[in-house]
């Protein structure tokens, strides 16, 4: 597999590390990771870097994940790049909101590396 450039957006540095480890366990190697602690930081990364995959938390201070997603689409940043939301919010309503905002996938915390693999790999194959 060629290099997978991935943006991970989460206000928790521990969660960013766990997501990165899960991606590596899912076989995404070589993996290049860009980290952001909020949606607004994530937008800044996308203005300077090309990525193949975006994983974002929803419930974050400053700019939440749904607004981050809307801004990606509104500013036409990372066109065609799959976005997967990783969040503790798991109701159908939250999933629907994420999909409406432009997410292609949804992973509920807590999660296993196997679940990350199941949700992410098909999106990368299709992209």
């Amino acid at each position, binding site marked *: 597999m060629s290099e997978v450039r991935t943006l991970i957006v989460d206000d928790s540095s521990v969660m960013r590390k766990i997501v990165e480890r899960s991606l590596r366990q899912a076989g995404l190697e070589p993996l290049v990771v860009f980290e952001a602690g909020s949606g607004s930081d994530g937008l800044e990364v996308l203005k300077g870097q090309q990525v193949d995959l975006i994983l974002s938390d929803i419930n974050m201070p400053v700019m939440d994940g749904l607004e981050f997603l809307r801004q990606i689409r509104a500013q036409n940043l990372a066109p065609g790049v799959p976005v997967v939301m990783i969040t503790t919010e798991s109701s159908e309503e939250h999933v629907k*909101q994420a999909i409406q905002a432009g997410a292609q996938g949804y992973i509920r915390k807590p999660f296993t590396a196997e679940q990350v693999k199941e949700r992410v790999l098909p999106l990368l194959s299709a992209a």
Partner: protein
Amino acid sequence: MLGVRRSAIATARGSGNKEMERTMTCSLRESVHLISDPVNLDASVEEVFRMMLGVDCQRYLGPVGVVEPESVTAVVGFGGILSGACVFRSGATTAIKIAAHMTGMEFTEVDDTVKDGIGEICNMLAGAWKGKVPELAANCGLSVPAVISGRDYNIHVQAPEFKLHHIFNFEGASFEVTIVCDGLQ
């Protein structure tokens, strides 16, 4: 804890979704027995620790052991159809052990990464617990976690509607999880 709760209420309202606003008119009063079922809390803790730490964690019903002088407390507020909080509390040694399991790193003290990890554990516990009741999953928001560490402090909640307080054990370490509900719609 008030700031945490305001943040959760803002999150619950922040979706701006008409469908969600409409369903918020439903009442939890009739399903209070389901919400306060202690089995949901135990299942949530077991699920989070198995999936995120890879350890078996079980409820402990024995006497409370020696309490460490330094402790770490994380609070995640609930807002919307239910207001209250999920509170995680452990000694410093247990907090360090949990953060080490989560990150694969070694820690010698309760630093920012340990506090971040404990905040996330509390966030996932709160999310898993409310996810057990469909009305709560859809109509109750979570705040971002607040984490307190140190010695000689107490968390006080005035006259809650109901409260669940359980002690759990994993690999010889113990911690407490409390669900406090001070308002139901």
